[in-house]
């Protein structure tokens, strides 16, 4: 603030009055202007004719004009005759006229659901979310033979880049996550099994837990968070910027052109990432066990080699393509379902990641129950 004084003087004569603003009536002094307007209004009680004399205004911008125009409108509404005297300041008079002639029409606000109603809507939409997932899966299954019959309807050239993005670029983060899981299982195994003098079984514990359950699960969750979000936001952005519509009108099926290569890439790389993760988890278990027991690395590795059986290895690796496919379909399906602008892209990406992680856990649990039933 510059210390300039905003004043709104009311000069009364019988039943008429002259309002004389002085000083800067602008955005920087809006609070003072509003205060002056509020002060002057009661002093105009009983006046039938009111003139606003703008000759003394230093500066008037849209903010000042808004407040003065609103005052004149209020006085008009109470049956008083108002007039703007702009002889000494025609620009200011024009500005006030501009803000007065644009009277507010009745607001036409579309109804917005409340918080409780939004919760209800999410709950009511759950079955639709499930059927939408089945719908995407069905479309994908239908698109696969068409893609094979008509290879030019699929964007195969993007496949190496997708493998690089989803696979090679994710090796470090998935390996690090699995290394830490191996380390945790190792420490936990030593602390629990040492009570029974069964530290020698820690390598087997790491192998069974990691190869059958934790390896596929941890790898899939990391891929869902990383690549699932990437795929969903990429396709959602394409949807809101009408690229998907452009594909359709050019005769391309987005399911074949976009979803098939992405799902194939993710199905191809997740088993590899899981296998690399299994190896790093063994390293984690070895580090933990050799650090706090007198087990030698050689003894640990020999015990690990004995514990790895084709059944353990396959039990984990068989389910990884299904977990990967679920991530790919959920991410791409959410992307394709996007409607709206930038906010919708964010919302769909969040939903895609949440659903993908949840889907991965459900599928993993289903496989575990199946293995138990089969006695594998």
């Amino acid at each position: 603030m510059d210390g300039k004084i905003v004043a709104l003087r009311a000069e009364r004569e019988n039943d008429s009055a002259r309002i004389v603003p002085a000083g800067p009536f602008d955005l920087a002094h809006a609070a003072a202007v509003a205060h002056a307007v509020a002060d002057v209004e009661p002093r105009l009680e009983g006046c039938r004719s009111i003139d606003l004399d703008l000759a003394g205004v230093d500066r008037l911008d849209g903010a000042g004009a808004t407040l003065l125009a609103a005052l004149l409108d209020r006085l008009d509404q109470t049956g008083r005759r108002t007039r703007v005297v702009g002889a000494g300041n025609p620009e200011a008079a024009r500005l006030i006229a501009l803000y007065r002639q644009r009277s507010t029409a009745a607001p036409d606000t579309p109804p917005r659901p409340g918080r409780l109603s939004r919760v209800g809507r999410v709950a009511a939409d759950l079955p639709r979310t499930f059927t939408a997932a089945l719908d995407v899966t069905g479309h994908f299954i239908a698109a696969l033979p068409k893609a094979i019959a008509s290879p030019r309807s699929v964007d195969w050239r993007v496949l190496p880049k997708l493998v690089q993005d989803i696979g090679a670029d994710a090796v470090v983060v998935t390996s690090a996550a699995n290394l830490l899981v191996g380390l945790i299982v190792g420490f936990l195994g030593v602390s629990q099994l040492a009570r029974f003098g069964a530290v020698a079984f820690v390598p087997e514990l790491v192998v069974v837990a990691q190869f059958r359950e934790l390896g596929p699960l941890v790898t899939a969750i990391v891929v869902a968070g990383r690549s699932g979000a990437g795929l969903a936001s990429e396709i959602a952005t394409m949807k809101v910027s009408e690229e998907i519509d452009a594909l359709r009108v050019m005769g391309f099926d987005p399911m074949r052109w976009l979803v098939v290569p992405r799902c194939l890439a993710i199905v191809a790389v997740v088993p590899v990432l899981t296998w690399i993760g299994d190896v790093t988890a063994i390293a984690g278990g070895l580090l933990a066990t050799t650090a706090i027991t007198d087990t030698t690395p050689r003894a640990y590795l020999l015990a690990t080699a004995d514990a790895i059986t084709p059944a353990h290895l396959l039990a984990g690796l068989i389910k990884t393509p299904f977990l990967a496919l679920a991530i790919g379909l959920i991410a791409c399906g959410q992307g394709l379902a996007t409607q709206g602008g930038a906010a919708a892209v964010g919302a769909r990406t969040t939903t895609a990641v949440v659903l993908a992680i949840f889907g991965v856990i459900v599928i993993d649990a289903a496989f575990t129950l199946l293995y138990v039933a089969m006695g594998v």
Partner: protein
Amino acid sequence: MTDRRPHIVVRDLRLGWGSRVLMESVSFDVARGSTFVILGGSGCGKSTLLRHMVGLATPQAGRIDIDGLGEPYRYDGAPPFGVLFQSGALFSSKTLAENLTLPLTTWTPVRGPMVQQMVQAKLDLVGLGPFAGHLPGEISGGMKKRAGIARALMLEPDLLFFDEPSAGLDPISAVELDELIRMLSRDLGITVVVVTHELPSIFLVADACIVLDKAAKGIVAQGDPRRLRDESTIPFVHHFFTRSSPASESKERVI
């Protein structure tokens, strides 16, 4: 007293990326309170020049001086101008009123019911009073642009930049927007800089213009667009204003 200094002074500007020069030796003045139009064909660098003028990019050489401040604006405080982007650039998760509230509550001490009053006045000014509670996704393209103008006006700037304001609009919406731009300059005394290649808009709003040419890598003509249309002997300027192509002209000559 009217300030006769130019509102914007651009001198010896060179724009480009890395070793690629898009335009060079660009110099012009924008008179205070005028509507100044930057013209040129697609890809000649009109929008790039605008991005440099509003401080979103740094020139390779030269000077852009707004309001005699000397220093380019660096986005660390209330902006001394408003900008309307091509799409309106409204925040899609916020209603029109919330979009307009943001600069006001961020950069001014205005609070409480006065905020709503100011916001409503600006929406009324651009004819969107009844749509304060709408989300950008619920209104048309032309309305989004008018809402963008209302947001750009919230801090009462005396300088506004418009990037292709009538692009993608039907003729009636385009004329309405042009008239709004004219009103901002005429009635509010705002200096307006418009990037466009829409000929009807140019003749309706422009007091002065520069014509950029990709091949010449800079300005090929400047002045009153009506005079340039009627008197310019520069082939590119002639073809631009008469909507003719050099190819069709040479074909006519052969016939």
